[in-house]
């Protein structure tokens, strides 16, 4: 079973994603902060990370940097889900090596699920 970790402080969104992704047959865990997320990655390495960039507790960019610097974790697929569509942030994230950047308001849940499925094929 492919493992997905969601790092997102907005309960409603993370619960929705978990419900939908579990129904598709993925193992899904949720972290609500940067620190909790890093702990959970250490506990069990996920195949894909769905991460919000701006959270009150912590910064998604730091998590992405840590993953991409580690030889063991580098191959985790990363999809950023963010409220921001700022090009400079997207460019920074892409240069760090993320797979996708999703602006929450511009996508429906179905489209997000499709992107997850494509990454985990």
């Amino acid at each position, binding site marked *: 079973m492919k493992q997905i970790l969601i790092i997102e402080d907005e309960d409603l969104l993370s619960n929705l994603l978990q419900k939908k992704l579990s129904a598709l047959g993925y193992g899904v865990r949720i972290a609500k902060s940067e620190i909790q997320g890093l702990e959970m990655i250490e506990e069990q390495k996920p195949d894909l990370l769905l991460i919000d960039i701006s959270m009150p507790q912590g910064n998604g960019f730091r998590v992405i940097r840590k993953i991409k610097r580690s030889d063991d974790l580098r191959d985790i697929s990363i999809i950023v889900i963010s409220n921001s569509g700022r090009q400079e942030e997207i460019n920074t994230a892409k240069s760090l090596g993320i797979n996708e950047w999703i602006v929450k308001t511009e996508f429906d*849940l179905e489209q997000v699920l499709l992107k997850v499925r494509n990454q985990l094929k």
Partner: protein
Amino acid sequence: MLSKNKQPDSRLEKKVQDLEQGTKDLKDTRSALMNILEDVEEERGKVEIERDRTSAIIKSFADGLLFIEGNKVTLINPKIEKFFDISEEDILGITLTNLAKDKRFKSLFALIEKRGDSFSREELMWTKDLAVEISSTPVFRDKKNTGKIIIIHDISREKMIERMKTEFVSIAAHQLRTPLSAIKWILKMMIDGDLGRLNKSQKEFLEKTYQSNERMIHLINDLLNVARIEEGRFLQDIKKVDIVGMVQRRVTSARGLVKHKKVTISFTKPKTKISKTNADAEKIYLVIQNLMDNAIHYTKEGKVDVKVGLTKDKKSILVSVSDTGIGIAKDQESRIFTKFFRGANAVKTETEGSGLGLFIVKNIINAHEGKTWFESQEGKGSTFYFTLPIR
């Protein structure tokens, strides 16, 4: 003897008379001169009062004043001393050539060189924390240009308030996006029947709610774009873009939007091949989208025609969007690109709308050093044009 003396007597008398007259004239002249002197004295007093008054005004003036006559600075006020961090003795009488060498005056001279003697309210970042507005007026004496007055107005506070306002909008809009995306996702799931079957009217209501939510997201995106324009960090991703292909894509997707309307959309291709040009693709797409959305929204029935070609000098791409819609009233033409403005007939036709679309369009095209304009007749339709320099 007597008769002989009679003549000299009368001569004497005449002389006495003349002398008396002369004395009187002298007295009159003296008193006239005294009067004049008194008048002069009085006038001098008045001039002195006037001078003191003018000097007090200049000295206490909230703006910086700098008087240049001939090739020299002849008058400054204390505010100028503060702005330039210089004392009156160090600047009066100094030639402009020498002054231009002083790095404190560098930006002022660069501005004068660029704009000449007469300009009004040019903004300049004087230092990191000091923003000013500079105006210059030439001075004439007997129709001859004798110098100029430069007025420097501190606008740092206005700039700070403007910045805070923009930051506030930006933060507020970002915070609003979070709940709106949650609402969007959940409504979509409900409409798709993921959370249980819905009856027809439930579905209809949810679809309407979904559309309202989409409008709110759209408005917030507009506000964020305006905030970015005002922060001066709008264009970020400049690369080679195929404008013709982009317009064509938008035309295709817009045809889907007008299915339920009596509006046809046509696309006129350029006569010659247009190569790719450097631009911010996302922003230019937003321009095309905004112009076409307006054309469609404000045309009840008829046609929308989108053309792409080159300008006469072939140095720019010219895009036009024409419609047979409600048009723009003559007296509102000048305000059409201003922030939050919506034409009276537009508000009547379509109650929704932020009045930000065309403001965003103009700013995006300006940032690309292109031009935006329109032709319109109320009740007949409008054509909006923009150019993009090819580079």
